[in-house]
Every structure is written in C-alpha cells, then in structure tokens.
C-alpha cells in the first residue's frame, strides 16, 4: 500500500517538479539539463507577446472574479430564502453545472454566442443610420468573461451557500428585533458573517479564470490569454521559457488558493464559535 501511495504521488508531482526544475535550465532545450540559471525568467518577462497575454488574462480574471462573487452571492442569498422542491432542483443544477466538462461549456458558449451574434449583427446593421459603420458583436474579452463567469459563479454560490447555511438564522431575527431594517440587517449582520466566503469565492474564481484554457480557447476570438499563448508556443517546441511561465503561473495560483483556503477556514472557525 505504501509503495502504491508513493507511486501515485510521484506520478502526480514529478512532472510538475520537472517543469519547475527545467525552468531554471541554463541550456536551450527542454530535454537536457545544463546547469542552473534564471535567464529564461528574464526572457519570459521581457517577451511582449507573453506579457500581453499575461495582462489580458489578469484583466479577464479580475473582472470575472468581481462579477461572479457579486452574482454568486446574490444567487446564494436568494436560494437560501427559497423553500420547497424548487430549491432542491436549483441546488442540484448548481452542482451539476460545476461538473460539466470545460469542453462542453466551451462549445456550448461558442454555439450560443455565434447564434446570438448571427441574429443581432444583421439587425444592428439594418437599424443603424446609413453612412455609419454599424457596431459588430464578436468574440473577445466580453465573450471570455461571460463564459468564465458562468462557470465560476457556481463555485461562489456553493461556497457562500455553505457559509449562509452554517450561520445562525436567529442572528438575522435578533437584528430585526433590535430595530434594524432588512437592508441594515444585511450589511450589519449577514455581510460580516459571510464575507470570508465571498473573498474565498473571489480568489477561487480568479484562479479558475486565470488558469482556464479550454473555455478561453473556444471563445477568446482574437484575444490571447496566457494559457492559450502557452499552448500556441508549445507547438513550436517546448522551451525553458514556457517552463518559466508555467512555474510563475503555478506559484501565483498556489498562493491564491492558499489565501482562499485561509478565508474559508476562518469562516468555519467563526461559524463554530457561535
């Protein structure tokens, strides 16, 4: 059993370790190690294409995280106050939406967006006054953000729902009993109770959006996110530069996940104290 477990862990982490190791490779090729150096990091950071893709990803991830934490929290609150079989169904649908493979979301969003564009673009063209170029809906930032938000919102809903469910319902009644209106109760009692969950949801959404390749690949249009850029450059052969970018993304994602974990645990600790 112990050997089996060791092998599993080796399979899991050796490839990742190799990427990190080779990112420090002094040589040109990804396959042979010739001394250690950080030159590839410098090269990666000064690569304008990689830089553009990085900032595109960052921007998208940030907007996605904001949108999904706002919408997810609102949805979680609405679901909580619902009763009966409808809530069970809606809850189930949220869990299912998380398990839908990225490729399905990618294709589905692509098809849906293309259909919408095909419908609206001619309509816009006919509505626009003669002589002006009508605006044209197309793939780009907005489509990636929409597709990512769709997916990450479910994560936020689940995390925030768990926190709300763990919250003492009497706290809200106590606040109402002490003359606080529903709105004041929300930001004086509910929000302070669930903000760790919202922050955790924000960070998870950010990481998921930033790391996502499959969905972006389908709907990104002319814009290149970092994972899409990496995929494209790998086709020209794996260089230590790609390893360096990968290592940096890995470090960034891991630290965000650790912070998110901290917030979720903080929330649970607070819940237990009650």
């Amino acid at each position, binding site marked *: 059993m112990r050997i089996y477990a060791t092998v599993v862990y080796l399979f899991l982490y050796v490839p990742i370790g190799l990427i990190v190791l080779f990112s420090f490779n002094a040589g040109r090729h990804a396959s042979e190690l010739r001394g250690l150096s950080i030159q590839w990091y410098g090269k990666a950071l000064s690569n304008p294409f990689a830089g553009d893709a990085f900032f595109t990803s960052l921007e998208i991830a940030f907007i996605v995280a904001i949108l999904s934490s706002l919408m997810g929290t609102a949805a979680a609150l609405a679901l909580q106050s619902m009763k009966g079989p409808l809530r069970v169904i809606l809850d189930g649908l949220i869990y299912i939406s998380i398990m839908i493979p990225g490729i399905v979301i990618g294709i589905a969003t692509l098809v849906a967006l293309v259909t919408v564009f095909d419908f609206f673009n001619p309509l816009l063209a006919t509505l626009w006054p003669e002589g002006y170029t009508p605006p044209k809906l197309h793939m780009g930032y907005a489509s990636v953000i929409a597709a990512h938000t769709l997916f990450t919102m479910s994560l936020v809903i689940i995390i925030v729902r768990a926190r709300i469910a763990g919250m003492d319902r*009497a706290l809200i009644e106590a606040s109402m009993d002490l003359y606080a209106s529903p709105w004041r109760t929300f930001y004086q009692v509910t929000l302070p109770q669930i903000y760790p969950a919202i922050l955790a949801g924000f960070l998870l959404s950010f990481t998921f959006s930033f790391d996502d390749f499959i969905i972006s690949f389908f709907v990104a249009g002319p814009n290149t996110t970092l994972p899409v850029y990496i995929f494209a450059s790998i086709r020209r052969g794996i260089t230590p530069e790609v390893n360096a970018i990968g290592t940096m993304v890995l470090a960034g994602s891991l630290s965000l996940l650790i912070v998110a974990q901290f917030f979720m645990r903080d929330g649970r600790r607070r819940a237990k104290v009650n």
Partner: protein
Amino acid sequence: MTSVAAFRNVSKRYGEITAARNLNLDVASGEFLSFLGPSGCGKTTSLRMIAGFEQPSEGEVFLEGICVNDVPAYSRPVNMVFQHYALFPHLNVESNVAYGLKQRSPKPPTGEIHNRVHEMLELVQLTGYSLRQTWELSGGQQQRVALARALINKPKVLLLDEPLAALDRKLRREMQIELQNLQRNVGITFILVTHDQEEALSMSDRVCIMREGEIAQVGSPLDLYDRPRNQYVADFVGKSNFFYGVIEQVRTWKVDIRLDCGIPVVLNSSRSFNSHKNGDKICISVRPEQLVLARDESNIPEDSAIKSTARIMNRIFLGEQIEYLLCDERLGEFLALSSRHNELNEKPFETNEVVFVAWSRDATLILDDDERDKPNVS
C-alpha cells in the same frame, strides 16, 4: 384597558398544521407572564407573533391597544431574548448591547450610547466586560449580555424564548431569581416561554398553559395548582392522581360519584367548576400530598371522600418528604407524598407494608374526563 399586549381570536396555520387556534389573551402592563406547555403546543409561535416574526393567519395581535398585524418586527416596541442568545459573533459585548440604540433614528449621541451601555452592563452585573468578545463569555454571562441588549431599548414587552434552557441546573435556578428581581426593578412586562413547569410556576405572576395550539388555562400559579380547569392542567402542573367515574346523582350540596372500579364517592359540589349532570363521565383528581396514610384506621378522618387500604410498592426519599407508590386492587396505582415527620409521628412506611389510605372531600376535584383514552402519566 391596561393590557400592553393582547391576542384577539388569533390563529396560526402552517399548511395543514394549526400551530395556534383561536387565542384570546390580555397581558397586563408590568406583568410577568409565562407560556407553558410541551414542545409543539404553540407557545413559541405565540411569542413570535408578538415579536413580529410570524403573522397570524386569523385574528389580531395588539400592542398597547394598537393592532400590529401589519407592523414589521423591526418597528415593534418589543425585544426578545433568544433561546441560544443569538449574540452577534462579529461584535464585542459593548457593540452587541449598543446595537438596538444605534438603529434608532435619530441616532443618540455616542456619549449617551456609551453611558447607557455601561449602566445596562452594571444592571446585569457585567461591569468591565464591555470590550470582551461574546464567545469568550460563559453561558450565564452570554445570557446577561442578551438581556442587556434587549432591555437597553426599554421595550414595552420583553419576550424570552426558553432563555434558561441552555444553562445547567444550578445556574438556571440562580438566573430564575435574578430574572424575577430584574423584572421587578425595571418594571417591564416579561413574557416567558418555557416547557419547565417549575420555572413557570416559580417566576411568573400568571401562567398560560397551552395545549395543541390552544390555551388550556390562564391563571396565577396558585390558581392553576388548586383549581385546574381540566385534567390536562392538573396533570401538567404538579403531580396528580386521577380516578375515573360517572356522576350518579347531583344533589344540592353534594355529588354522588361511582368510580369505574365500583367505589362510591360523595363530594362537595361547590368544589366543582363545571356544572355536571347525572350520568356525566368525569375524572376526580387528588394531589399526592393530600392523601392521608396511616397504620391505624382510627387515624383516618371520618369525613374522608374515600377510605381504602393499599400496599406500598415503592418509596423515594426526597429529603424532608417521602414519595410512596401505592397499589390497590380497585384503585390501581397512585402516588402519595408524606412528610417524614407527620403529625402522628409515625415511622416511614416500608415497602410492601399495607396501610390505610384516605383523602378528604375538599382535596378532591371533579374534572372533565378529557383524557380517558390517554395513559395516566403521573
């Protein structure tokens, strides 16, 4: 009318279930009233309708003579102490207590809030705890914070939802006395919900006993104990022995009853609340401490309602008193409570001893037989 809170024909239904049925009640200003009953009897629902967390399906809830059916909880001049206190975990003691004052518009000046919080903490004996976190406090201290948080708003009525249930027995006893003193000091109307009859009887001016969503009887603790209106109340308040029978004949001052076991009983009819007719199925009730036990028949009073012999099946020492479980072929099992040092100065009876049993006519109540199909619990 001095009633500070009132129900008028109030009913509350959840789908098929009726949690409260046709409640009519007036709570006097400055009174300490308890809702007493087993779980699911509608006592908490009644309290929550006063607080505004539940709306009555029918009827009207009044506060100070004004119908508050359409007034939301946050606009009602009442405050509640929750069962598990519901202190805000993200706020310290001072902010918890100040919460209600801070919601007022216009908001009182900070200095005034501060002073009143400290006065309040002094009242509940928590001086110096203002900057503590609520979760650092013991159960009893949290309870006091919850009280202070509610009382600082000077509510017309303070609602207490089983506030002592989470405390251990000794602390509960202390808090009962403290609550009673506090209520006298602040002069605010208290409405308490509890399933603990001892708690309700020892603290309240009046007790409202509830049963399956209805009010079984409202009265002072003494009233309920001495003059229960039905078997349910007699059973719920203290221990009682019940014997079933039929009214044979109603005479001017007397009632002839024949118990199901065949024993004839003659009672004074003035002790009966309800007008009974010949042939009515009834239940007579007698408190264990009103049974007279004796080794010698000559010690049994002449005018007893019943005289019999019974075997002592079991005895429990309760300190000064001893509780006996007796059994007689005809009367069945019943309880007697006698002082260890009774007037006759007899030694306590032993298990298996056969003794004379009797009780006086005045100690016997005639109740409606509304529990016949249910097992005799006491």
